[in-house]
């Protein structure tokens, strides 16, 4: 090791360490990047409301517009959706007796909400899913046997269902439309 190298390495060390210290010092006056979730957000803001529309959180089913077509059940790669529906002439179509989603198994891939014709099954921005038991992670949507929704040719007019269907269709519009044969 020559004397020149010896002093150059001392000089290098001082210069680069000084440079690094200048950068860390400059960070002392920069704003922190942290969002203090959940309790120190600006007033009236829920973090869920700031998430994008496509956010894939906990699954939700709007039974009002579910057609019981079982497309989601078929699409699910891990079979975490179970739907039971029977033809019932008296009630006027399909009657759903069961629509369960095992959120403990769900991997939030979004494959179920893609083929849904009405946007009934969709991801919400909710992500806080911790619970005390596995059983309570199963979401059972059908409380009492429900008649499946039947799309109307002329468009929906029911004031209750209309906004739900509009939201569903808007959700569907986000997906890229490929072939469905």
């Amino acid at each position: 090791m020559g004397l020149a190298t010896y002093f150059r390495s001392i000089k290098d060390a001082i210069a680069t360490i000084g440079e690094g210290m200048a950068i860390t010092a400059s960070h002392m006056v920069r704003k922190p990047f942290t969002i203090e979730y959940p309790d120190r957000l600006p007033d009236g803001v829920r973090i869920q409301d700031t998430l994008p529309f496509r956010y894939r959180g906990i699954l939700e089913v709007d039974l009002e517009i579910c057609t019981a077509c079982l497309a989601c059940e078929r699409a699910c790669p891990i079979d975490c959706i179970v739907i039971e529906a029977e033809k019932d002439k008296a009630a006027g179509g399909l009657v759903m007796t069961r629509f369960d989603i095992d959120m403990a198994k769900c991997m939030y891939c979004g494959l179920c909400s893609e083929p849904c014709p009405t946007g009934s099954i969709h991801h919400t921005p909710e992500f806080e899913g911790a619970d005390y038991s596995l059983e309570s992670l199963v979401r059972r949507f059908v409380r009492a046997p429900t008649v499946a929704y039947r799309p109307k040719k002329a468009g929906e007019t029911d004031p209750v269902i209309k906004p739900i269907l509009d939201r569903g269709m808007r959700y569907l519009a986000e997906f890229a439309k490929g072939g469905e044969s």
Partner: protein
Amino acid sequence: MSLAGFEVEVQRSKDDGGVVTEDMTLSMGPQHPSTHGVLRFVIRADGEVMKEAIPDIGYLHRSIEKIAEKVGWHGFIPYTDRVDYVAAMFCNHGWSFACEQLAGIEVPKRAEYCRVIADELCRIHSHLLSVGSMAMDIGAFTPFTHAIREREYLNDLFEELCGARLTFHYMRIGGVGWDLPTGWIDKLSHFLDRFEPLVDEYDRLISFNKIFVERLAGVAPVTAEEAIDFNLVGPNLRASGVRYDVRKDEPYSVYPELEFDVPIGTGEKGIVGDCFDRYIVRMREMRESCRILRQCITQIPDGPVIAKVPRNLKPPAGDVYVRLESARGDMGWYVVSDGTAFPHRCKIRTGSFSAISIVPKISRNLMIADLIAVIASLDLVAPEIDR
């Protein structure tokens, strides 16, 4: 935990004074702070100097290749996210690419651009974690958080693009699942404007710091021949001075339309192929990714983002091997179809798997602290090794 298969021969040596010394066997991992997931090394060391380090893998084996045979062509895409969760886009891309090759599906141009944008963002995403955790393993904590901060911004972008921050499930067979959201391109270019100076800042903060350079330069060099023999890929291969990039040399997607350089290791601080080269190649690749992204922003055409693909896809019988440049290098997907709705076999050859197999060779006579640098510089990601 048994040491089956890892019986390290205890070597006793006698020096002239008649003192008998024994080698020390250390088990590093699977819960060691710097083994990046659950890796384990059995180290035979003489004091601080290692005589050998034997990797023990399989702690994160989730049998993804077996799952592929059970879930069908479309259903496997979310699983590919888990192959390498640090750079999930590439696995999405690899699987979709392989299936498209098998089934002969033409991907729309805009979808290819969407894929490249997602890929390159993901490359930055992954390299940030790599260089950040490398700095942390060397002992500097601050650069890591700076890298994570930028990564957070990217996560927000991904979240808006595909609804998830880690397991993207963005690509589909035949295209991508979602078109770019409105205003997303502006956010992306804002990110690039903000990110490029911060890469320089990161360089000044840590890359050329004397201590950092001293720790990495000349440590565990891999020659070009060794790298090819052990099939090192991507940044690890390029650091050894081999100018090979799948994006350039066997172009796929729209990479031929894009202009970028392939940085290689030059041994600027030590020997070609040492830890520092592997590190600095990643830093430079991030800049190249920014360049590619800027070109994509201006060149992206309009049009559909997914082709017509039957929901019940049954590719004709046959096999295909596709390669694409993931963040950890040339990722190979060997997919065999037997003409049914389920893949017959899917083999994923990942960069980390070959990278870890070279560790016993290059870690001889290094110090324990150097092993940390070697692991970090090879950018080993445990899920990708075990799959």
